Structures are given as C-alpha cells and as structure tokens.
C-alpha cells in the first residue's frame, strides 16, 4: 500500500514541474496546482478511511525495518491533519487565483505545492530527524510565499521571519543531538520505548532535549515567550499566504502533541511532568497576549494575527493537560481555529484591497459593504467563540476538559476573559470598518479629488472571490452541525494517540507485515 507516501510525493513531483515547465504560463500553472490540490484532497479522504479502522499503518521507506530506516506512520491523527491541510489548501488556492494574488509575483504555485509537501510530510513522519527535514521543506517554501509580490514592509517582515526560524532550526538540531546522545535513536516509536526506561534521576539530558524540542515547537506554534514573530509575519504576508499559514502554527501544536505524548508523555518518569509545568502557564499567557493584542490593534491584519495567537493559547492549554478528553477537545479546537483564522484572513483581504489601507478607521463604505460585513462578523463570531458556529463548541469542549482542580482556575478565567476581550476587539473593529463607514458621506466616491482611486474604483467581489470565505464558513458550520460524529472520531483519534504501546507495536513489530 503506497497511499501513505502519496501526500508527500504528489506535491513533490508537481512543484518542480510547475516551476520549470509551466513558469511562463500562469493559466497552466493554475490548472496544475488546482488539480494537484484536488487530488491531494482525494488522497486525504482515502487516508481517513484507511486510518478509520483504528490500526496504525506503517510505511517503511526503502523497506528498511523501523529503528534503522525512516518510517511514515499513518494513524487517525495524521490522517485528520492531512485532510485538514488539503481542505484548507484548496480553499486558499481558489482565493489566491480568484483575487489574482498568485500573479503578483513569480512561482506562487510551485512554492505552494512545496509547502503542502512539507506540511503533509511533517504530519506523516515517524522519525524525528525526518520531522526536522520536513520542517525545513515547509519553512523554505514559506519564506518564498511570505515575501511573494515583495514590497518594503513585507521584505523586512519576511527577513525577520526567516532569521527567527533559522535560529529555531538550529535549536532543533541541538535538541536532536542531545536526544540522540542520550537515547541512541531518533525514531519516535523507539524513543517511546527507551525514554520510559531512563530512571528519573538520570534523565537530565533527556529533560534538556525535551525542553529544547518544546521551545522549537513553541516557536512554530507561537507560544508566549516566542510568539512575537507571528503578528508581524501574518499581517505583512499576502492574505492567502497568511490563511495558509493558519495550518503552520498547527504543525507546531501537532508536533508537541505527537512527540510529548508518545515519547516524553505519561509513563516516562524523567520527563512526564515537564509539559504541564511549562506548557500550561505559557499557554495561559499566550491567551492574554492574543486578547490584549486584539483589543489594542489599530490595523485589521494585525488584529486577526493576534486572534490567531489567542486561539493557539486556547489550543495549547488543552494540549498541556495530556489526557484523552483534553486531547479530543484540543483536536476539535485545532480544526475549528484553522478554518476560522483562514476565513478571517481571506475575508479581510477582500475588504482591505478595496480600502486605502487596513487601518481601523472609518472610510467611505466600499462596494458590497453589507456582504463583507456579514462575512466578517460570521468569521469573527467563529473566532471569538460565540454560539452559532463551531468556536463555541470548541471552547466548551476545552473548558469541559479542564475541570480538574489544578487547571480550572487559571484556564477558565483566561479563556473566558480572553474570549470576552476578543469579542470586544472584533466588534469594535467591525463596527468601525463597516458601520461607521456608512455614516461618512458617500459623495467622497463622486468627487474627482480622491487621489487614491483604488477605493472609489474598486470592482465588486466576484462569486469566486467570495466563495472561499463562504466555503470556510460552511466548514465551520458543518463542524458545529456534525459535532457529534466529529467528536466521536476525535475521541478514538486521541485514545489512539495516547495508546503508546499500540504505536510502538505497529512501528517496531511490523516485520512480517506489508511494508
């Protein structure tokens, strides 16, 4: 069965083809990119069904047995993340094409496919050094996407982003070196066997490695002390790229979930207390940073970026508990917040490109003011976690999972107050953008002295431009509507994740199985 490796191979083959063969023909590149992404989505659906039987599937690259060769591992969590990635990618791609963002610079589609390759690979790999390699793949593609179409502010923000992540990569290597020196393996399943054997008083090196790894993943996930790169990056990136980056923070959260549950998690005497000790308070502060950022932002894109920081805080609070119910809640919230953030960026892009800037000030209303207002507020409601959409259920699940005495005080107050501040921030931004605008005299559009021109002459959004945002909202609504089936799937996902014997058995004991 070669299905497991396809999400990596397909974009990996498609990207150079787009870069070298179709570089002069944007239409051809668009067709290839959309076809590839649709195919990826189909593969992801197949993988979901494959993983649905609750068995951990292992794909041995080059047919080398597990601790020696590199394995790809498909369990329900990986399948879910690949499906999430490909769905998001398709939505973002439609937006990028409909708004012609992809034609504002070169090689958008090639970089986009490389990015998908890196993300899918990171979700599927069962080897921690291979995880590093896929991180680098997705990062190097993201550098290109981040500075796509150039501009002064974007280049400077991109430089910051690159330097930040290169430093993070170096730290990743230090962590891997420490881990290899103390355990002698880099296979996740093998680590899950060896780390529990290390007694607590000899685990100093492993603890160092665990903390270094957590810092690295925290950089990706925008956790408190290292979250500062995110607002500048996301608000200066092209909007579709920022929407795609919504999954990149989740790669960090996924890595924490995978590595710190399977390898360092409960049952490893040396390292099991680390996560709750450090991750939980950091996540609480992250919620606060996000909420205050939303409240204090003066421009629309940073406001959304800060709401992403806040949602990562909420997600990681649930991750930090490392229990089955909390992981279920975290996964539900992860799916929700990915779509919510992407939706907000896509809809904000439609609004911002029709205004003179993305500052939160009253300007004459743009075309389709009402439509944009409805879309924006729907997405904002989802992000802030108010009832009709899945954000409410997600936060409810997280709160419910955190009812243990050690967590309830801080977590509940942080999440609830944070949500309130986020709602206030979004409501203020929305009412300035859409409602105060209508109070400003519309004649501004008629007087010829509007030098900007873009505002007055901006064309209305076509159906294809609005469709991605609506698709995202539809995904959120479906997530809320089918919360029952979804959360029962996520239940079995998280119990599979926490069953480390099953994982080890599948990866290391798979000698006689098909490769």
């Amino acid at each position, binding site marked *: 069965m070669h299905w497991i490796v396809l999400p990596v191979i397909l974009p990996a083959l498609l990207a150079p083809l787009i870069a070298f063969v179709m570089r002069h023909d944007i239409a051809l590149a668009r067709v290839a990119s959309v076809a590839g992404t649709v195919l990826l989505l189909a593969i992801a659906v197949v993988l979901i069904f494959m993983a649905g039987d609750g068995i951990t599937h292992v794909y041995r690259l080059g047919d080398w047995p597990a601790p020696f060769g590199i394995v790809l591992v498909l369990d329900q969590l990986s399948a879910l993340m690949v499906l999430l990635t490909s769905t998001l990618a398709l939505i973002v791609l439609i937006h990028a094409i409909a708004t012609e963002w992809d034609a504002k610079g070169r090689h958008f589609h090639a970089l986009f496919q490389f990015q998908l390759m890196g993300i899918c690979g990171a979700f599927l790999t069962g080897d921690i*050094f291979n995880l590093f*390699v896929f991180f*680098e793949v997705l990062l*190097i593609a993201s*550098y290109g996407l981040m*500075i796509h179409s*150039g*501009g*002064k*502010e974007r*280049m*400077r*923000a*991109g*430089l*910051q982003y*690159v*330097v930040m992540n*290169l*430093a993070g*990569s*170096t730290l990743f*290597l*230090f962590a*891997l*070196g*420490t881990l*290899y*020196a103390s355990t002698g393996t*880099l296979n996740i399943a093998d680590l899950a066997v060896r780390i529990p054997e290390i007694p607590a008083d000899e685990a100093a090196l492993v603890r160092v490695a665990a903390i270094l790894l957590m810092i690295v993943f925290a950089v990706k996930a925008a956790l408190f002390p290292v979250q500062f790169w995110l607002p*500048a990056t996301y608000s200066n990136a092209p909007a579709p790229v920022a929407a795609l980056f919504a999954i990149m923070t989740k790669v960090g959260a996924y890595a924490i979930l995978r590595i710190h549950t399977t390898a360092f998690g409960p049952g490893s005497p040396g390292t099991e207390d680390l996560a709750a000790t450090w991750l939980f308070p950091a996540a609480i502060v992250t919620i606060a940073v996000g909420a205050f950022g939303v409240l204090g932002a*003066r*421009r629309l894109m940073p406001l959304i970026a800060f709401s992403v920081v806040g949602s990562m805080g909420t997600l990681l609070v649930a991750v930090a508990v490392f229990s089955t119910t909390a992981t279920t809640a975290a996964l539900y919230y992860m799916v929700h917040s990915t779509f919510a953030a992407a939706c907000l960026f896509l809809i904000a892009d439609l609004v911002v490109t029709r205004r003179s*800037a993305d*500052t*939160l*000030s*009253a300007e004459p209303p743009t075309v389709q003011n009402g439509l944009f207002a409805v879309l924006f507020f729907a997405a904002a409601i989802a992000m802030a976690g108010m009832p009709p959409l899945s954000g409410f259920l997600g936060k409810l699940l997280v709160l419910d999972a955190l009812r243990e005495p050690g967590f309830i005080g801080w977590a509940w107050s942080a999440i609830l107050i944070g949500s309130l501040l986020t709602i206030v921030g979004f409501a*203020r931004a929305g009412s*300035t953008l859409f409602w*105060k605008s209508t109070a400003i005299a519309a004649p501004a559009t008629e007087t010829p002295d509007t030098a900007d021109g873009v505002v007055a002459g901006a064309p209305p959004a076509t159906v294809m431009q609005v469709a991605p945002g609506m698709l995202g909202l539809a995904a959120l609504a479906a997530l809320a509507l089918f919360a029952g089936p979804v959360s029962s799937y996520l239940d079995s996902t998280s119990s599979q994740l926490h069953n480390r014997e099953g994982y080890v058995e599948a990866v290391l004991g798979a000698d006689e199985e098909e490769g």
Partner: protein
Amino acid sequence: MELIISSSIGVLTAGGVYLLLRLRTFPVILGLALLSYAVNVFLFASGRLAIDQSPILSKYGEATYTDPLPQALVLTAIVISFGMTAVLVMIGLGAFLEADSDRIDITADDGETEDGGRA
C-alpha cells in the same frame, strides 16, 4: 579532545548568539553561520568522540567502529544550513535594496504611522 570540542562549540555558539542579537543583516547572517557550525560539531559529538575509527562495520577483523548516524545527520544539516544561508542572503539583500536599511527589527513605523486610526 573533549575540552577542545566542547570549548569550540561553546565559543562558536556564544559568538553566533552575540552576532544574532546585533539585529543587522550582515552580522545576523554570520551569526547564523557560526551557530550552524556549532551545531554541526555538536551533532558529531553526539555519536561519542572517537579517533581513527571508520563509520562502517568490518566483517574481517575485530576493528571497532564509530557511530555512522551522526555523520549522516551532520551531512543533512550542512546541506540544509548551506541552502538556508543562501536564501537568507538573497532575502536580506532584497530587504536592504527595498528599504535602504539593513535593520532587522521593525517597530519604528508600526504603531505611529496612522494616528487617525483611532476612532
């Protein structure tokens, strides 16, 4: 040898971190290069330090061997950091040409541009 290896890793890392904190493009690139040298040596050391030993098993003799995996890891790390440095140089150059400044931190015109932004 342990002293030489560990102190060189330490010096390289210290220098790298110092240069990284200069927040100007050129020192930061040098700093990241130093950091990646440090991490390469560090990865080498993670397979235990051994002199005059080949990284392959000899089936003819009793010869001891050294761990081959860190060498493979270092090779991967070198390739990646080399490529990343090239990308960083290009992006740094692009940013410098666009902005006429090689500062990496951007805060100056982040909050004060639009005073009218307050409603």
